């Protein structure tokens, strides 16, 4: 093979040459993998604890299962080693050829791009019509409750993702404690409404401002740290807030949480089955679903507000400074940008949207407790941002749908029972599937679903910037 490109030439050289050697190395490799599998299966697979008739626990050996697992791993690994390597090399060659062609021709706007242009109106349309769609799909107002609730949950995460996207995606500050601001917002509403009787519509902005205030308070000492150090300190901050909520019993009622938080009203009109309630005012038959649907549109509006503000700020000097900060902090300083203040604005703004989402959470649940604000929550929101492609609004929305809606869909895979037997519960495998999906993402789309960046301004046509050039920030 005398390939013209240097890349292909090196590729062919790297390939293990003699087929005979291939065979033995594959055999060795497969043997090693089998050994590892065997080692792992001793604590995991080989025994199962069962209960006997007399309610006693006993160990049931399952060596057959171990054997099957080992044989499977051996066969798979062997085949993969023998053919997989060749296949991967061939693919690599094909890809480098394709890339060489692509750089010579003017970068075409790919299918993905055109899909993306379509995605926004489709998403918006579906989001707006969602309660109606689920009404028809479920065949009734009360029956559609599950779907609308799911929609609300997804939209909450979309909003949180968009809020965190300002901090992580635009400014490049890795914040592992975002849930702290969510908690501040939720408790702000819970406390203000239960102690002072303030209405939700007053508390909503107040919660946002309080969260932003906490963001600045945290940001001042913390933002001189960079990268991993920043991540660790924000992580700790998230935990501190949660621990304060648990332990400051006089204020927060500790782990028991705050109950009977006032419900949302239709701009002052309560959703009750009485004279002067929402239903009677509009001449409708009373249904608790009115409130749920209102909550749906409320969170949709709040999420879109977050999106609007973010998109708007990206085109203003402050947004450009955030992105510049993510690209190169030292260069920013040399251009006279006050990096500390710029980071603080990003942090505070992200916190504000987190706080607003938090007070929405409180009004929807009618109950808040520290349990809802654990690290897993922060991790989920961060995963949404990273999965979506840092900085991409559409990507974050898609990722939120996948991350929140996806596991929920597992509940509905009843037909799998027919395949795997009655005892099979797909829900038990959600973390496994989740892990698999994450690994797959890292392999195929390490920069997230939508990795390219849209420039904020252009003289001629706006050209998307490849994700390979965009930095992820390190502080």
């Amino acid at each position, binding site marked *: 093979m005398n390939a013209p490109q240097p890349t292909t030439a090196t590729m062919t050289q790297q390939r293990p040459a003699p087929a005979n050697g291939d065979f033995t190395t594959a055999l060795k490799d497969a043997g090693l993998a089998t050994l590892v599998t065997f080692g792992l299966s001793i604590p995991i697979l080989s025994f199962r604890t069962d209960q006997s008739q007399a309610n006693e626990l006993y160990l049931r050996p399952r060596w057959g299962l171990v054997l099957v697992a080992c044989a499977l791993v051996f066969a798979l690994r062997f085949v993969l080693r023998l053919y997989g390597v060749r296949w991967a090399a061939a693919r690599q060659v094909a890809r480098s050829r394709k890339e060489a062609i692509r750089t010579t021709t003017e970068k075409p706007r790919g299918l993905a791009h055109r899909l993306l242009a379509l995605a926004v109106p489709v998403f918006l349309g579906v989001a707006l019509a969602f309660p109606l769609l689920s009404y028809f799909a479920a065949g009734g107002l009360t029956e559609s409750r599950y779907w609308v609730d799911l929609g609300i949950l997804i939209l909450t995460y979309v909003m949180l993702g968009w809020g965190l996207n300002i901090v992580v995606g635009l400014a490049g500050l890795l914040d592992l404690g975002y849930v702290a601001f969510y908690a501040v917002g939720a408790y702000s509403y819970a406390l203000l409404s239960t102690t002072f009787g303030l209405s939700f519509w007053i508390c909503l902005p107040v919660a946002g401002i309080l969260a932003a205030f906490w963001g600045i308070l945290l940001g001042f000492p913390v933002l001189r740290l960079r990268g991993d150090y920043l991540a660790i300190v924000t992580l700790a901050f998230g935990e501190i807030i949660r621990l304060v909520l648990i332990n400051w019993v006089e204020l927060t009622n500790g782990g028991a949480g705050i109950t009977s938080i006032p419900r949302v009203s239709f701009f002052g009109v309560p959703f009750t089955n009485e004279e002067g309630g929402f239903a009677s005012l509009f001449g409708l038959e009373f249904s608790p679903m009115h409130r749920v649907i209102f909550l749906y549109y409320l969170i949709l509006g709040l999420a879109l507000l977050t999106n609007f*503000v973010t998109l*708007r*700020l990206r085109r*203003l*000097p*402050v947004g*450009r*400074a955030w*992105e*510049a900060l993510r*690209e*190169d902090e*030292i*260069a*920013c*300083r*040399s*251009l*006279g*940008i*006050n*990096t500390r203040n710029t980071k603080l*604005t990003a942090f505070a703004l992200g916190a504000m949207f987190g706080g607003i989402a938090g007070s929405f959470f409180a009004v929807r649940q009618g109950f808040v407790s520290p349990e809802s604000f654990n690290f897993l929550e922060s991790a989920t929101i961060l995963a949404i941002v990273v999965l979506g492609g840092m900085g991409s609004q559409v990507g974050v929305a898609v990722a939120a749908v996948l991350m929140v809606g996806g596991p929920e869909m597992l509940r509905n895979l009843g037909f799998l029972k027919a395949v795997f037997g009655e005892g099979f519960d797909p829900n038990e495998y959600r973390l496994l599937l989740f892990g698999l999906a994450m690994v797959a993402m890292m392999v195929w789309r390490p920069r997230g679903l939508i990795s390219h*960046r849209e*420039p*904020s*301004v*252009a*003289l*001629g*046509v*706006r*050209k998307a*910037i*490849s994700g390979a*050039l*965009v*930095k992820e920030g390190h502080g």
Partner: protein
Amino acid sequence: MRWLDDPILDMQHLTMRFGGLVAVNDLSFKAARGDITALIGPNGAGKTTVFNCITGFYKPTEGMLSLRHVDGASFLLERLPGHSIAWKAKVARTFQNIRLFSGMTVLENLLVAQHNPLMIASGFTFLGVLGLPSYTKAERAAMDKAKYWLDKTGLLARADDPAGDLPYGAQRRLEIARAMCTEPVLLCLDEPAAGLNPRESHELNELLLSVRKDHATSILLIEHDMSVVMEISDHVVVLDYGTKIADGTPAEVKHDQKVIAAYLGVDDRDVEKVEAEVGV
């Protein structure tokens, strides 16, 4: 000497130590307003460290750096916070290893450089969110300035391309354009000709000369390429191991025994012998 009369930058007894290492040792010199002052010296002489002190990335161990504007305003650079040096004292710089915002377009790079005036025009974002005409006008002016510099550096055709996609020489020019968008009175260039081919290097000379002529910007230049240094600079300061060993016009410095010795890496006394050997 001209640079003693109306210096834009007056550096006195600058010393910078890193632990036991003295990177800059009691360096004093003046750079005249409107001059191109070159700072040269062998590798590791401490040139970049001097720049880092001027632009606030390092706090000098000792010494004073005073900068005076035409209107008489004067600044003690070692006391200003980093970002004020660019914004208030109007000192801009480029970096030895290029630092562009590579994931942003060329145009965006130049708009980021005009952050502070745009920030004020946008009412610290609050008015900008509303899209008031005063901000739109300021943004248009910023775009015009960006276009002017793109035109001057020959990058106008690539305005919408990501900065990271530009070839090396163009990235160097873009970094200068970006620094110029901050309207500096003093522009510090750290090896702007490194890695340029002779034609690009010639274009760079033209660009720097026009910057000085048309924009009332004085230039402080670190450069290893002697063709650039000798051709365009008015005043040369030579550093070796952090100490100033010569200070004068290019012609004077060129024939200075100490400078030749430092560049050839030999003792003062052996210069003639070595020169004869290498045939200078």
